[in-house]
């Protein structure tokens, strides 16, 4: 919302300067976005007078002028057609920044002649082209130039030239003073405050804030001299509770007065003609949208009704709007002629030729207006106000004010006002509990001050006699009709503290919570921290990637397009390739790795800890940590390091599990789940046959190809919330360390097995040979060769025996060895290698 300082001062007696006004606005909740002071913006431009103008030696269109300026006489090259001796215009010195063209003046020769400054057009200064309408009025004085150059009159006027200023201005005085431009303030209007969309509402708040005295004269009704010939009918009172109308006949439409045009232009509205400008002016002055119809173009009664799918009309935006179902349509006998509170229609709009004007001042349901606005996409000042809820009591004031202004400028004769429907009551009174002020803000405000603030804002509290002031006291408070946002005691508290100032709030430290200090982080949150730190500690870079991905990518990871769920599909995605909630972040990470590789990164290790979405229920969301590695082929002067392979991924995964207090050996290693893993170089860790805790290994080359990623890519995905929670314990005490008193015994075994036997089974079965004595079994070699036999391999296991109490005899060791061999042989068909 924009307004000018003089406009504000129509309703606020104040001597406050701009900084004080801006500060008061900010403190009262009117968040200032920009204060444009034209004096500041135009400070480099001063008034000058052209003394002589001679033809430029090298360019037909240019003249070399001798100019009397604030800096003395200057020779300036000028291309303006209207540059001529005696002209008072605008001068910019060397070094000045020209906002219209975005250049800073340098003393550069123009076609061989140095120009010592610039004579400026309105456009170059970003002001009006011809603010005093002198350039057109004095066309005869400069048309010889156009003629000499063979330029038509039309073309010359369109091309314009430099700005023409009144002759009596003093050389060297600021151009800004001559233009008498006003300071424009732009601020953000929060959606709860439609009244700030009118200058009156701004002035009222600043008055309450103590910036000056708010003044608002009551609008004097204009007595109608004849019955309104246009009849108004409301066919749906919920959509349009009240519609006031009036005809003014015999008007002479013309440009609106300069003062009105100046204000409208300052806030960015193009003046059109008085009848249209007056509606815009009152819209911004009072937040009172109006509409004017050319009565000659209306056919029959005007009615407000609900639209239908068949309704259609051409709006003032020149577009056809059809299918007006559920919208509040204004219609006459010809059908729809506008959308109430949103936009009028072309067929009945006013033009410069309008003689009889019909003014509409109505109240439209805010929610319906908002829905209509969204459905049609129409953006208008009327919609912006009506959908936020304008003052329903302003109907008659609006129509009277418009009548007065139109009669003053365009003459004519006003009819009586017709009112269809009933003015809505507006906001309900509020039971304000003064104790809520201290309770909610901590600030003890005297009752007198509360009452003063409320009255200044237009509230009417009924304050009981002092004797009755107690905790439960209630002030029945009438809410002003322009404040649809106020509905409870807390709203009144906000008004009070807002006007008093948030800087007056006390500062009190939050008391410590009752009871002992609790652990505030959940085990799950700690898991995320630990997993992230393990991976970062092992050389991975943490990323955050989109929660959504292309549905086709998602389909690759969940077993096909038939597994996609509507519930996880975004109906209105930001981009068509970000339309499905990810089932895994591996695709995002692999693509991220590829992007880095494309930019020349040779060793990319990325991870992300974040949500994945198997379903849309609140408890469906899962917390995963996933990582990918697109490793460089290692080169080292000590010999090439082993490549990052599935076992490297397994090592990183195990490091996480160990850090998370999960013994990796308690999980079963199973086949990979999902076709995006390499069938032979990837695996799952499971708790039982169903529950997958983690996957690791190489991604499937076909999957990578579909993603546009060059393989190999190694990956890890760990479902942090699938890991079992530790058993709850009463204390943190640990069992006493049972340190072995004997040195451990280590023995190596080499088992020859069929190729298909998993090495992990051999180690597991070796442990079972004597679960008490055998404390570890670790595969340290796998050998294949002719000596072993086709389709077989030799798996070497180091077994650790931990005797307790007494050292083991050779016989005992041999007995355990036999038990181990038997266990492995039974489970795998292994034969001890001879």
């Amino acid at each position: 919302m924009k307004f000018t300082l003089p406009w504000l001062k129509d309703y606020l007696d104040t001597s406050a300067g701009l900084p004080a006004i801006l500060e008061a606005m900010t403190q009262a909740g009117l968040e200032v976005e920009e204060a444009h002071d034209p004096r500041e913006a135009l400070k480099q431009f001063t008034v000058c007078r052209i003394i002589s103008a001679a033809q430029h030696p090298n360019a037909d269109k240019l003249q070399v002028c001798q100019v009397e300026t604030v800096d003395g006489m200057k020779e300036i090259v000028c291309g303006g057609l209207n540059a001529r001796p005696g002209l008072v215009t605008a001068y910019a010195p060397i070094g000045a920044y020209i906002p219209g063209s975005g250049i800073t003046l340098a003393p550069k020769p123009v076609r061989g002649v140095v120009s010592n400054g610039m004579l400026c057009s309105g456009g170059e200064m970003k002001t009006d082209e011809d603010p005093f309408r002198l350039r057109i009025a004095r066309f005869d004085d400069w048309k010889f130039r156009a003629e000499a150059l063979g330029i038509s009159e039309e073309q010359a006027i369109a091309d314009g030239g430099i700005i023409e200023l009144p002759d009596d201005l003093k050389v060297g005085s600021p151009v800004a003073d001559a233009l008498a431009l006003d300071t424009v303030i732009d601020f953000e209007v929060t959606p709860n405050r439609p009244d700030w969309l009118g200058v009156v509402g701004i002035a009222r708040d600043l008055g309450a804030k103590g910036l000056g005295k708010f003044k608002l004269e009551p609008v004097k009704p204009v007595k109608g001299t004849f019955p309104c010939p246009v009849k108004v009918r409301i066919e749906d009172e919920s959509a349009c509770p009240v519609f006031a109308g009036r005809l003014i006949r015999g008007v002479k439409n013309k440009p609106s007065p300069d003062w009105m045009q100046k204000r409208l232009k300052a806030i960015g509205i193009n003046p059109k003609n008085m009848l249209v400008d007056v509606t815009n002016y009152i819209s911004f002055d009072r937040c009172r949208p109006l509409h004017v119809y050319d009565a000659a173009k209306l056919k029959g009664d005007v009615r407000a009704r609900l639209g239908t799918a068949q309704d259609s009309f051409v709006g003032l935006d020149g577009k056809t709007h059809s299918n007006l179902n559920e919208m509040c349509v204004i219609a006459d006998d010809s059908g729809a002629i506008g959308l109430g509170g949103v936009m009028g229609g072309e067929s009945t709009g006013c033009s410069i030729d309008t003689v009889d004007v019909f003014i509409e001042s109505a109240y439209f349901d805010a929610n319906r207006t908002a829905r209509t606005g969204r459905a049609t996409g129409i953006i208008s000042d009327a919609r912006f106000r009506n959908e936020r809820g304008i003052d329903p009591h302003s109907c008659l004031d609006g129509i009277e004010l418009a009548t007065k202004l139109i009669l003053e400028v365009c003459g004519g004769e006003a009819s009586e006002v017709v009112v269809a429907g009933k003015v809505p009551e507006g906001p309900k009174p509020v039971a304000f509990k003064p104790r809520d002020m201290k309770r909610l803000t901590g600030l003890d405000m005297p009752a007198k001050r509360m009452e003063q603030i409320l009255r200044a804002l237009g509230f009417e509290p009924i304050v009981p006699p002092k004797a009755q002031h107690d905790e439960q006291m209630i002030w029945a408070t009438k809410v002003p009709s322009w404040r649809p946002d106020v509905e409870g005691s807390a709203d009144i508290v906000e008004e009070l503290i807002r006007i008093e100032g948030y800087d007056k709030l006390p500062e009190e430290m939050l008391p410590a919570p009752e009871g002992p200090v609790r652990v505030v982080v959940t085990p799950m949150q700690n898991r995320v921290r630990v997993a992230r730190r393990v991976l970062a500690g092992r050389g991975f870079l943490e990323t955050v990637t989109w929660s959504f991905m292309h549905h086709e990518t998602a389909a690759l990871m969940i077993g096909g397009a038939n597994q996609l769920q509507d519930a996880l599909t975004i109906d209105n995605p930001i981009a068509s390739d970000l339309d499905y909630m990810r089932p895994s972040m591996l695709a995002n990470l692999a693509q991220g790795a590829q992007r880095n590789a494309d930019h020349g990164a040779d060793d990319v290790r990325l991870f992300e800890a974040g949500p994945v979405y198997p379903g849309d229920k609140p408890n469906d969301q899962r917390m995963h940590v996933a990582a990918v590695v697109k490793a460089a082929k290692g080169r080292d002067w000590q010999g090439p390091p082993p490549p990052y392979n599935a076992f490297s991924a397994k090592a990183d995964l195990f490091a996480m599990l160990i850090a998370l207090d999960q013994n990796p050996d308690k999980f079963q290693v199973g086949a990979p789940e999902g076709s995006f893993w390499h069938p032979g170089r990837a695996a799952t860790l499971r708790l039982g046959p169903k529950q997958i805790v983690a996957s690791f290994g190489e991604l499937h080359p076909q999957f990578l190809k579909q993603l546009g990623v060059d393989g190999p890519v190694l990956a890890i995905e760990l479902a942090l919330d699938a890991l079992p929670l530790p058993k709850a314990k009463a204390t943190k005490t640990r069992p006493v360390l049972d340190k072995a008193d004997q040195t451990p015994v280590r023995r190596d075994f080499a088992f020859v097995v069929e190729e298909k036997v998993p090495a992990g089974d051999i180690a597991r079965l070796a442990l079972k040979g004597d679960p008490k004595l055998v404390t570890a079994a670790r595969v340290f070699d796998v050998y294949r060769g002719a000596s072993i036999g086709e389709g077989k391999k030799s798996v070497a296991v180091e077994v650790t025996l931990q005797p307790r109490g007494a050292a083991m005899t050779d016989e005992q060791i041999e007995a355990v060895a036999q038990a181990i061999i038997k266990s492995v042989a039974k489970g795998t068909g292994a034969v001890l290698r001879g």
Partner: protein
Amino acid sequence: MAIEQQVQEIEASAAAAIASSSDEAALEAIRVAELGKKGRVSLLMRELGGMSPEQRQVVGPALNGLKDRLTAAITSRKAELELAALNVRLEAEREDLTLPPRYEPVGALHPVMQVFEELAAIFADMGFAVAEGPDIEDDFHNFTALNFPPGHPAREMHDTFFMKPAADGSRKLLRTHTSPIQVRAMLANKPPIRVIAPGRVYRKDWDATHTPMFHQIEGLVIDDKVHMGHLKACLTEAFSRFFEVPNTTSRFRPHFFPFTEPSAEMDIRCDRSGGEIKVGEGNDWLEILGCGMVHPNVLRSCNIDPEVYQGFAFGLGVDRLAMLKYGMNDLRPYFEADVEWIKHYGFKPWLLPTVTGGLS
């Protein structure tokens, strides 16, 4: 030859031989020749038996002394030779230690996650627990319970992503803010409540300063006496700690949020004059968060009696806060998994942000 003279002669010749011995084998030969069973000293020792007691008293100690001195000389020479041999070996083992160690990748944590942890550390110190909620929300938790009436223009400020409608016509959405976690916290717990809620949020907006997904953190305190003065002090303290600069000044000014009444925005003092934003100096203000007293309608929606309980809430954009503290100038690379960016703006994993140990 008198025995004393023999002792002197053995000592002199043996000492010379020990000193000139060049390896352990030579030294061992000397030991055998002098001190072995048939060694010169041992043979002289045998003669002691035939001596008179007086003579034995003189010669015995002399021979024993000789034996001890030769043993010590051999041990000492042996140590010398070992050291020399070690020095020779070590010289041969000399490496060119300007050669590089084997490549090890260096990891880092994402700045948004770091800032989440920093804020969690500060607020944990003030007694806030960390609450969570789902990203795919329903209209009730994201809007209605937060006092966004259906059709109200305030809903339009959030460009909401909607999921495809279900068979019954209802449709879920991606939460547009972390505030639905407030609602869940209030529905699941009885006051007093003191939580922060970090998370991903989604709005349909994508340019230099907006991404369709970003991060927020939400705070909520509900009890029977907490008021705006507490809110002001709590947030002032929290953010003066957060920025880790000597001075931060903040101000509160009125604003509008459907779910708080009164509502406020908090600004911090900053300097924009140099093209970048510096917190803690200058004459500009920068908005960092929205906050206020929880709206009575919100409390009612969560089955909490607003006549008995009250509280405050705040919410802020974490990505922007990270930019402000750590100087990133563009939001988009946050989500691009660019290794150079993460290495540059990321954090080493070894130090956990704590209030006592420093946040960063």
